[in-house]
């Protein structure tokens, strides 16, 4: 990094948006490099693991030796590029893009519904263009992230956060829409889980009354029961989960093989080059099941280290949330935390036999181009936001709202509520 931009980091005139630079107290500063370090660490772990099983996997699938690692290198390269772009896009860009992104996601979902059903998964999940396939659910996650952050922060700004008609009703519609589109038509309960977690946790984090959060959670439960009972395949998976040993040769095969991979790793693991389960025993070894393969290779010590890295990532994101005064930005990070942590929990939980199996990737480590690229975009966004954290305890809350309310009203019309809540009336806890 050259010395010129470094100086500019402390130049108040260069704060994002620029229009309200003078009012901003959360000045642009160094980003949280831990985000970049932890992201890179997980990417490298993924590359190493995929590299180590790539030749064997390639041999059993009759593709060229370097097929998997090449694909993963390309995806990581693309992901880093998108991270870099997102890291320099101002939050206002995301604010403006929330609606277009949502429209693209809706159109994409419609397109997917009308493409031929995928033979392997019996679901409409992918848009295929030439040799590339694109999983629409990942785009929906990003659109949901920006749209929810924008919607909730607007409602919060307007003081309508507890309003049934203005806030609660649209959320319910959104939940049902996500349930219908992703769980039913794309038959992707794993991604639905991540999206629902993002919605519920953003709602929770913005400060919606607990009673309403509970109502939303109840609705989610009802939808979940509906989703499971409506599909024979899901009922089977649930039954398999509840009685894992009963059907190791049939539906429970993957779950059993995952446990065998994890358990056979022992304390120190078999070693990087010595995985066995990756070669035909455990399906999806390089993507959905990669955690179990790592557990086999690296053993208890290595696996705990990886879980700890995710923990550190979560802690870092939490820290950014706590110190981001701007509600829109704060909710964006909340959404990313929900995204990353829920996906990680669903994936690892299934590999450890604590949750039913879902076709979902382990964030940043698994092979799976679309999932990696969109998550990298979201993390680039977090990296950008981490430049505007504020660590001063005496920071007035009002100024936070003022500094950022430029994009609450893109037309220049001020929303009066922003000023009607003086800092002194809000008790700090």
């Amino acid at each position: 990094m050259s010395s010129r931009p470094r100086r500019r980091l402390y130049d108040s005139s260069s704060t994002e948006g620029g229009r309200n630079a003078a009012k901003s107290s959360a000045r642009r500063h160094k980003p949280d490099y831990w985000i970049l370090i932890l992201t890179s660490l997980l990417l490298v772990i993924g590359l190493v693991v995929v590299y180590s099983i790539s030749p064997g996997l390639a041999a059993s699938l009759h593709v060229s030796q370097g097929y998997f690692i090449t694909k993963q290198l390309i995806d990581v390269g693309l992901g880093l590029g998108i991270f870099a772009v997102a890291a320099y896009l101002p939050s206002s860009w995301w604010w403006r893009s929330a609606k277009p992104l949502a429209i693209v996601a809706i159109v994409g979902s419609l397109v997917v519904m009308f493409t031929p059903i995928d033979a392997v998964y019996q679901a409409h999940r992918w848009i295929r263009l030439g040799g590339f396939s694109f999983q629409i659910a990942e785009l929906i996650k990003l659109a949901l992230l920006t749209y929810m952050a924008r919607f909730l922060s607007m409602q919060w700004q307007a003081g309508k956060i507890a309003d049934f008609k203005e806030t609660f009703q649209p959320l319910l519609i959104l939940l049902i829409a996500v349930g219908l589109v992703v769980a039913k038509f794309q038959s992707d309960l794993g991604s639905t889980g991540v999206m629902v977690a993002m919605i519920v946790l953003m709602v929770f984090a913005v400060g919606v009354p607990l009673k309403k959060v509970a109502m939303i959670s109840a609705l989610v439960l009802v939808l979940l029961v509906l989703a499971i009972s409506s599909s024979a395949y899901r009922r089977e998976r649930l039954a398999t989960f509840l009685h894992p040993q009963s059907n190791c040769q049939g539906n429970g095969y993957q779950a059993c093989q995952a446990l065998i991979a994890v358990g056979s790793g022992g304390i120190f693991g078999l070693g990087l080059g010595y995985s066995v389960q990756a070669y035909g025993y455990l399906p999806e070894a390089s993507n959905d099941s990669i955690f179990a393969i790592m557990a086999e290779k690296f053993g208890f010590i290595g696996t705990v280290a990886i879980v700890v890295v995710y923990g550190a990532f979560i802690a870092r994101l939490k820290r950014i949330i706590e110190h981001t005064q701007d509600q829109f930005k704060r909710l964006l990070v909340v959404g990313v935390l929900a995204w990353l942590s829920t996906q990680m929990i669903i994936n690892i939980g299934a590999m450890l036999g604590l949750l039913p199996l879902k076709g979902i990737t382990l964030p940043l480590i698994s092979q799976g181009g679309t999932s990696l690229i969109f998550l990298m975009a979201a993390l680039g966004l977090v990296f950008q936001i981490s430049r505007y954290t504020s660590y001063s305890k005496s920071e007035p809350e009002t100024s936070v709202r003022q500094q950022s309310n430029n994009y609450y009203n893109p037309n220049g019309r001020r929303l009066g509520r922003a000023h009607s809540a003086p800092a002194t009336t809000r008790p700090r806890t």
Partner: protein
Amino acid sequence: MTPRESVTPYSSGNSNRRVQIWYGVLMIVIAVFVVRLFYLQIIKHDYYHQQALKDQLKEYSIAAERGVIMAHDRGGVVPIVLNEKLYTLYADPTFVKNPDSDAISLAKITNSQAGNYAKLMKTKNSRYVVLAKRVTPDQKNKIMTLKLSGVGVRAQDYRTYPQGSLAAQLLGFVSDDGKGTYGLEQALNKELTGTSGMLKAITDASGVPLVANRDNLQVAPKDGSDVTLTVDVAIQKQLETILKQGLDKAKSSSGSAVILDPNNGAIKAMANWPTYDPSQYYKVADANLFNNAAVSSPLEIGSAMKVLTAAAALDQGVIKPDTSYSDPGHWLLDGHEITNIEEDGGPGIHSVPEILNLSINTGATWMLMQMGGQTGTVTKTARDKWHDYMVNHYQLGKATGVEQGYESSGTIPDPDNGYALQLTYANTAFGQAMTTTPLQLAAALASVVNGGTYYQPHLVDSYMDSTGKTIAKKPVIIRQGVVSTVVSQQMQSLMEYVLANHHLQPPFTDNYSVGGKTGTAQIANPAGGYYSDKYNGTYLGFVGGDKPQYVIMVRVNQPGVGGYAGTAAAQPIFSTLAHMLIDNFGVVPKS
């Protein structure tokens, strides 16, 4: 609810507290993961390790290469059975994507019916269907370039026969599951197969051993021994040609012949007609073709047996080579008449040479009676002595132990138990009411003319084990003093006399000692008694110089030519064979 009220209690401070609660939940989840990992990876490690090995550790047997078979060819040794790597084309129907189009591309390469392949590839509930066997390396390479999902090949050793169908029944074949079947392949299956090795390895799910694993255990296979036969390829070829020509001439559809070295029991050639191509054994519809009739199909040999009867009587000293006796023309034994069916043999004074030359059944019976000391009855003593000679001297009625599958032992009637024993035993004196294989007879005659030593007839000259060490197989002496050397000489002379009086064409010169005896055997009717119009022709003889060098046994089944079967059908074959051996195979003339 006013907007203001709604905002105030839910400040970012409060909502950060919610984030902290959520963060706490996440940390608890991570802690649960760590505990779970501890449980799975440390507490339950042994259990899962065992579970993993149950799936991953597989034991394979590594096939040893089957030994090749060689035979003498004049001075040297040539291979007659070799191995060739071919491929079995198979499919796993669960992975086949386009059975119809795949079948068409495969059938094009293997030149077979696409319809069959498609049907096989659509088999339900099967993970392994064999599409084609014996796919050549060339075809295999073409198939591999198609990269069809669910289609694979498996290498397998197959036998290949540089000499074509030569000695097919003697050799036998190796079935698709690698088992020697019939002939030498069956008898020496253990030696030829060797010991398969073992690979205990961690494998991938499809069973391919993972090279990287540290716990792999390998025991190298011990290849089967190579075998060199006593058979001489050139003699075998001649024998097969001459036998076929002779059978054609005699209007017979089947027959066998054996050429044996009487001085060590080595089989020089052994053939049957009809025969088959061992490289295409799977196309043979009639399994009888696989039989080496010369060792597997016993027959009533007929009058050729009289030489063994005479030798036994001479050896016991109850007759002399020039003994004369009064022949009544028939014997009444157990209410049945023994008569002469072959050539002249009416009542009158006959001598031992005439019994053989004219093939007098009543004369052979007379010789048997002499063993018991009572002309007119076949006493128990006579029967016991003759039985002793047949079974213990000539080794009849028991398998020779030659290296052949399905060897038959033949049957010799019990001398003391049974119905019409006198009649039965009188019949055995001229080769009826008992059965032997051509090989048994050749070996028995060998012991009579070689000075009295019974060598086990054998086909193996030497083994070469997988380390390259050659183990020569020494001739095995089963019995010495089968007959005395004097009797041996006398028998040679008697047989030379018989042969000379039969005027074989072309004639043999005096430089060589050639002797023999015909047999025209009635064929037992399975319904009882004998067929009145069906005969087998046999000839048992030898050729040599100062001492016999080859013993020859010829069998012609139900010849269609007129005259006595032995003389008209079998004798010419013997004659041609003896000339062939003299002309081409180093029979040493008399000094």
